[in-house]
């Protein structure tokens, strides 16, 4: 038998690390795990303060729809100001 069917590949093996019902904060260096309540429409990251709108692909499968724009804009402007001060 030239191929071993029983052996799991790396891709198959990594499947066990998958989590459902959660997503990660979209602030790239934060990536805090967020777990919205069932059908909750908005969620705030406790780590970095970013706020996101939530879309439910299925009742057990939420994803970030996008940031809450006002909050995002304020955080971005503050961050930019800080850089300019430096």
């Amino acid at each position, binding site marked *: 038998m030239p191929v071993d069917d029983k052996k799991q590949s790396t891709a198959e093996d990594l499947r066990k690390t998958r989590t459902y019902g959660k997503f990660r904060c979209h602030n790239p260096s934060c990536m805090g795990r967020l777990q919205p309540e069932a059908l909750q429409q908005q969620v705030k990251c406790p780590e970095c303060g970013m706020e996101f709108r939530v879309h439910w692909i299925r009742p057990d499968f939420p994803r970030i729809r*996008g940031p809450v724009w006002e909050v995002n804009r304020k955080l971005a402007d503050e961050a930019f100001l800080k850089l300019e001060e430096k």
Partner: protein
Amino acid sequence: MALNRKIAYIDLTSGKIEIKSIPLEVRRKFIGGRGLDAYLLYNHAKKGCDPLGPDNPLIISGGILTATLASATARTHIMAKSPLTGLLGSSNMGGFFAPELAWAGFHHLVIRGQAEKPVYLFVHDGEIEIRDAQDLWGQTTTETQWSIREELADEEVKSLVIGPAGENLVRFANVMTGIKNSGGRTGMGCVLGSKNLKAVAVRGSQDIQIAHPVEALEYNKRFIDQITSSKVNQTQGALGTPFIWGATNSWGGIRTRNFQYNQLEYADDVEPERIDEIAEETIGPYHMTGCFACQVHCRAQYKIPSGPYAGKYDEGPEYTSQGAFAGEPDCKSAETVLTGNHLVNQYGVDNLEIGSIISWAMELYELGILTREQTDGLDLRFGNDQALLEMVHRICTRKGWLGDTLADGGVPASEKIGKNSFDYLIQVKGMSNLHSDERATPALALNIATSSRGSDHLRSRPAIDLYHLPEKVLRKIYSSPVAYDGPLSSEHTSYQGKAWQVFWQENCYMAVDCLGICKYHTLFLGTTLPNFEDWPKVIYYNTGLEFTPREIWDVAERGNMIERLFNLREGLTRDDLKKGDTLNHRYFDEPCRRGAPDVVGRKIDRDKFTKMIDEFYQHKGLDPKGDPKPETLLRLGLENEPSHLV
């Protein structure tokens, strides 16, 4: 069996057609698809040939797994010298064309010469006819396909076609099949136009023997289950590729107003969820469709909800249409995205390139580099949806000074417009960048800078770099099938080990393109999708050929090196802004201003970037100038190219 599919050499000038087998030796060296296309191009194109002349060979192919029992073996690959970049032209599309080509008995078509009058090819069960296409000239992409079916009285005929943009030699015209499957990049439609070749129609009913059918069925079930179980593909299946644009915009990785900002704010009307609502409202609850034998079904169907094209049926939009008709030109209307998507599909033009180039012109207009006289009175400011769509018409029909100028592609247009317009052109090797902004992600910046067909995300992007995977997981992925014990970093802003990740992905994507399967079925957006370790099984069960993961890697590396050799022969030099492995100065000079707090202020560090390129060249076996070392060519068995094996 898959292995006895043929190569056909078609000369449109003389009408001569020659059909050849593919020797097993060639299969073992290049497998098929893009890898073998690159070999054929390098062997059959003359150095410095005119991309729009008869000597430019146009190659159309499926992969070794096309139409066999593997998942999503739908991809068609098209290759030639690019009339947009003057370097490698290469484009890949889904749909149903390549499987039909395989059932007709062929894996590769090499089309040379130039027909005197418009023609189309009809490939059917081992035979090829050159047919008159004068009546088809001028028709849109879908009209052409339906006309061919009517003429041949067969609704099962699948065609690869060009639209008016290809006929008008727009340098970034695409080839299309079905409603929206497009071989978009590098202007392959323009090459068809230059050959007076309106379409390639195929119809096949020849058996493709499956080497181990029982095992192939069982393994394919497991393979599909692995592919469809990933969260990324479940999201694709619900929202299509717009979800990638949405997620990227959410953190600030979408370039806006050409390259002035990195996020389209308050973009609720063009978010994937909104697009999905429109698809649901206009089509119904089951509005997702797919390519051949694919269970991910990432393509939406929709009707334009409002405006002058209201009620028109189309498919998509993909994330590139969101980039082209929302992010870059700073427009925020779903109607514009869906209409723009429809127009580019009908004209047959690359949505990505046209969106990028119009938003570049918008910035030039706002800066006063382009005058209102040059735009023929069009108020080409950002956010002007009507001007954006009008420019699509003008470019595709070469109407007006600006339409005609932009239709020649960014670099020639910048030379015609003059002043410092080139400084604002966001391109690599003459091809516009995707709508994404890579300033916060050095690995992705390296990917677009070094991609063989010019700026591109589908050649070597380590998209998972943003997931901050533990180093242990990264090592598990990136140290197989070739051992790697150098640095790897979970941090997306780091420059550590990124060159290896890009090198690994470059080989992964080349392998996928040789097999003829879709990139959403490998390690692109999801970590649990199949790659080198999984492929030997699919190849063996379907074709009977035995490959180790390492051998597939070697084939991929060889394919990438042949592409490099082609580019070097056509003038690629490392630091050339128009033909090299480098980026527009704005990546290094202008910091991100929007997005997540952590993204604000990010830009690429020039010194670290240069070191990353050095490192990338080392992995590839190139010298610091970017030329292959003799021992690398020897190792890959490419020391005698062109070797003319087929």
